[in-house]
């Protein structure tokens, strides 16, 4: 956020008011040629972005308004479906198949449960990962023997590819796997609803907590030690130092970390796809999209557009929330000193 705001302010602040009037004409010309120059410099990047981001998104939206191919009753060959209007969106949002409600066993009947599952996974995993990640970051920030060894060890789960992680936990949670042997239980981890969900949450937390810890650690390390010393001299307790100093100062980094994790978790695919194939109430939106691609591209495009809008909305709420915060702490005071 701050990087986006800085260049805007930069030309304003150094020019004193008196000189501004004299130099205005020359400055304008310089600014125009500079602007043109800048345009040519950034245009390759813009073209690249247009090709890899704008084109697929726009194309998906166009496809979302087309009917899926249907079978010609006479020749038994697929023919183009033609324009669909909002039918594809109604199909998902209202769970309508044709004129009736989608029957269990169709993808259409799973939309809202998939939305629920996705948000459930997101909420639970992000909360757990934030709490555990914070704790790990605080430990890693301390100075002690073997700190670098610990940091390296913590990173191992994050370094393992998700597909491998999923297979690993798939075997751990098998009926005669380690989890059941260790606890002497006979739980069908991947074969019944809540155990399956928790199995996925546990694997996700195991895998991504290090990522969270690392981002928070980066935030912790920019807090100067003097602030803590000053607070100690003033007689602040450990808890007060945590809530009054650590938390507010680490908040920007923490928020970015949480935002990344939330967006990441909202498109969770590989863990449930490998561990449960989406059975037992673990079908996320991304799994639904991939399943639908094999049944009809245009419905899948509508579904991925809906998914896109959902993620957009969540991201917007976060950035708005974050952005407001950043603006509030940046604008009123250019002088030193933080107040709450």
């Amino acid at each position: 956020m701050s990087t986006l705001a800085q260049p805007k302010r930069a030309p304003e602040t150094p020019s004193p008011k008196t000189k501004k009037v004299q130099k205005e004409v020359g400055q304008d010309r310089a600014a125009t040629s500079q602007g043109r120059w800048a345009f040519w410099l950034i245009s390759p990047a813009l073209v690249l972005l247009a090709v890899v981001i704008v084109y697929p998104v726009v194309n998906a939206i166009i496809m979302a308004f087309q009917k899926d191919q249907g079978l010609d009753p006479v020749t038994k060959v697929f023919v183009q479906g033609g324009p669909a209007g909002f039918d594809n969106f109604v199909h998902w949002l209202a769970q309508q198949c044709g004129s009736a409600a989608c029957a269990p066993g169709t993808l259409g009947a799973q939309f809202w449960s998939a939305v629920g599952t996705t948000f459930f996974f997101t909420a639970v995993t992000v909360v757990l990962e934030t709490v555990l990640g914070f704790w790990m970051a605080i430990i890693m920030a301390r100075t002690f023997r073997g700190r670098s060894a610990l940091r390296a060890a913590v990173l191992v789960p994050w370094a393992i590819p998700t597909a491998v992680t999923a297979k690993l936990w798939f075997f751990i949670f098998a009926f005669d796997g380690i989890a059941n042997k260790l606890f002497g239980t006979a739980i069908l981890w991947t074969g019944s609803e809540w155990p399956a969900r928790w199995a996925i949450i546990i694997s996700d937390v195991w895998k991504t907590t290090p990522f969270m810890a690392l981002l928070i650690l980066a935030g912790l390390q920019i807090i100067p030690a003097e602030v803590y010393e000053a607070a100690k001299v003033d007689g602040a307790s450990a808890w007060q130092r945590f809530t009054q100093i650590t938390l507010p100062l680490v908040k920007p980094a923490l928020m970015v970390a949480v935002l990344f994790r939330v967006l990441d978790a909202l498109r969770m695919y590989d863990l449930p796809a490998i561990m449960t194939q989406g059975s037992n109430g673990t079908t996320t939106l991304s799994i639904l999209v991939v399943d639908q691609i094999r049944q009809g591209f245009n419905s899948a495009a509508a579904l991925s557009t809906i998914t896109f809008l959902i993620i957009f909305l969540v991201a917007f709420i976060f950035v708005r929330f974050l952005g407001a915060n950043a603006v509030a702490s940046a604008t009123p005071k250019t002088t030193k000193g933080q107040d709450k």
Partner: protein
Amino acid sequence: MNTRKYLLPAAVAGVLAMSLSACGGGGGGSTASSGGDAAANLDGRGPITYVQGKDNSNVVRPLVDKWNAAHPDQKVTFKEQSDQADQQHDDLVQNFQAKNVNYDVVDVDVIWTAEFAAKGWLQPLTDKMSIDTSKMLPATVKTATYNNTLFAAPQTSDGGILYYRKDLVPTPPKTWDEMMSMCSIAKQHGIDCYAGQFAKYEGLTVNAAEAINSAGGTIVGDDGKSTVTSAAAKAGLNNLVTAYKNGNIPTQGVTYQEEQGRQSFEDGKLLFLRNWPYVYNLAKTDGSSKVKDTFGMAPLPGKSGPGASSLGGHNLAVSVYSAHKATAKDFLTFMTSEETEKFYATQGSLAPVLSSLYDDPTLVQQLPYLPVLKTSIQNAVPRPVTPFYPAVTKAIQDNAYAAIKGDKSVDQAMTDMDTAINSASQ
């Protein structure tokens, strides 16, 4: 200022959401009318490409080398795909949509043949392109037939086999009820009775279809409409539901794919196992197998005789976009010849589609499951041959799974399955 305050977050959110979800879009649609493509290049000869999934047992390359030695001016290039079925399917779809002329002969799973044929991507094997299917097992030809037209040449087949413990059960059960009554033997020895593939994936469709077909029911009729609400179909699914409820299928059975069941059987913890022929070699030779000399094989049990197995296997098809269809057809004939089929069976343990090979003494000596497999394939019913297969299999899996686990009644499951199958083909 105020608008900027809103615009900036919106823009950032947009970019983040886009970059994170941009991979979700699908490919574009293409026209399906291809009457022109199917009529073109029928006499074309020249180099072609053969596309198949990963050649795990290294049987394709020697065959391609053999062909190339005999046809220096019509060389075949072998393009190997990944070993994941879903990825092979998607790769074929993308290349057909792009009308890739370099995908001349393709290897398609039996369950994709109807879909690709209905999309107009496969060359009908009629007139100049026709091949001889009279010596092939009829069920395998059925998997390659869509709308009364042959679209592919059956190449390899596969059927279900009942593995049983001959030290505990001297004569294998012929019917489902007989097998269920033998479960008391399993109980006496403290082992599980029966397992197949009941996790929610394609294997469940195979097993549910076998249960339904063996009881005399069907899943879809000739018109492609669902027929699962018949009493026979319900009785078939009910067999599985009852067996799971009373423990004849163990609790963990709903997490079993092929490998978990095989593991349990080889550990001596399972009396009856429904699985594919590949288990034979592993159960015989695995160091950890405890049943090396104590297991036998039999056809799947049915209502009053052998059950109706589902069919696995692959078909060979010619792309309508191929420029050298005459060569492609010759290669098809070569790849489904008796000699090739025999090579496939001995080198790759791939079940042949020619019925004569099942009685070949040298082959039977090497692959003792062949006679049982022949019975299995002779009684087999292909999984629904429909261009909407992905939706149909999903409807079967979801509802059969819920019924087996007891989440809904058999009646309800079949009603839902019926609606779901029919809404798929609208």
